């Protein structure tokens, strides 16, 4: 019985591995999962800002670090040809590549500043967190206004 359970667990892990290997070839899937982590981080950050979730510096730093990692990697997954498929990326990303680059640069600039402000253990209190995250949150709308199409 034990062996069977172990076997099933292994099979599950392997199949997960296979799925993610396939996904690794697909820039649309990768950029979507990056943006999902941005959304989840924003959810936690927003919840703490609104007082729905208790603030801790470690959680604050986790939000900022997830945003920062995403901001630096997100732009690498829009190769030519990836405008077609199950995506809400606007064709403007490729038509106005310079504009998209500039939006990404602003995103990673603000997350970098937030990282710098959060120090080793994260922003001390929720007000410090708000001050660090405010400019980061400002990117969501401006980039989604120009470069995302809802389908």
């Amino acid at each position: 019985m034990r062996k069977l359970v172990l076997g099933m667990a292994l099979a599950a892990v392997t199949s997960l591995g296979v799925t993610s290997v396939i996904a690794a070839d697909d820039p649309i899937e990768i950029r979507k999962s990056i943006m999902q982590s941005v959304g989840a981080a924003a959810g936690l950050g927003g919840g703490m800002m609104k007082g729905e979730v208790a603030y801790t510096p470690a959680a604050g730093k986790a939000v900022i670090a997830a945003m920062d990692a995403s901001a630096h990697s997100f732009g690498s997954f829009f190769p030519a040809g990836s405008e077609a498929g199950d995506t809400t990326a606007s064709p403007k990303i490729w038509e106005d590549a310079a504009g998209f680059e500039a939006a990404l640069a602003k995103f990673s600039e603000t997350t970098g500043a937030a990282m710098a402000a959060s120090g080793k253990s994260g922003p001390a209190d929720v007000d410090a967190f708000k001050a660090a995250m405010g400019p980061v949150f400002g990117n969501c709308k401006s980039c989604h206004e120009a470069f995302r199409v809802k389908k």
Partner: protein
Amino acid sequence: MKKLVAILVIVGLAGAAAGWILTVPETLSKTQIADLPSGDPVNGELLFWAGGCTSCHAAPGATGDDKLLLGGGLKLETPFGDFVAPNISSDQEDGIGGWSKVDFANAMLTGTSPQGSHLYPAFPYTSYARMTLSDVADLYAFMTFLPAVSGKAAAHELGFPFNIRRGLGLWKLLNLSSEPVVSAPAAGSDADPDLWQRGRYLVEGPGHCGECHTPRDLMGGLDKSRWMSGAAAASGEGRVPGLDPESDIGSWSAADIAYYLESGFTPEYDSVGGEMVSVQENMARLPAGDREAIAAYLQALPAADTN
């Protein structure tokens, strides 16, 4: 034979005359004009944001005080052709600085220009027609304080038959009404009646939400049997989400809707995008009670096809 021709000619002429009469651009009645108050610019500013004037009539991408420069220029590329938002700044020559309050009220409520011709419904007078005379007068009073911007916007580029303004008379007979769309909150709703009424007024009137969130028929009229059920974007790509309880935001609470209109964040912390960004930023300038009213109305929308 001669008689037949004569009859045909007479019938033809009668038809043409009837068509001509049916397409006459209507204007406000004398009583309505007499009822136009002097106008309160403070309330007018609220209606300016609720009405979203700046989203089309300011330069695309304008931020801050530039949103008050209404020189026009946004191009709406639709299946009927390209509409260009005109200059509605207070400039005497290029804007509407020369319009009287009656001219302005006629445009807003009847879709008729000071020269007595039909305006195209890309200007959403089909919604503005539900505004009160007093709110229109207030909006006029506010807009006279906005800066003059010189320069006319480009002309519309429309193909036949849409380039014949007179034909809009028939379209307006079918599609222009000052009656509310939804007569009552959905059965079982516990919406506060006053809040709901205010929400209905804002959504169906100045806010003109239905103009994008409701599908249109082949002639470009709103299909009110599918009110707020979402639609293909009239301009550009993508889809405008539905707002009724059956559709995309059905799981949101009233507080979620109000917070979205204030902050631009969905309950999942996705952000507002596309053309809605500008709309949301306008809504953020309304008093909180008005955003709550909009939320109350949307929450109590009857499912599409039952209103």
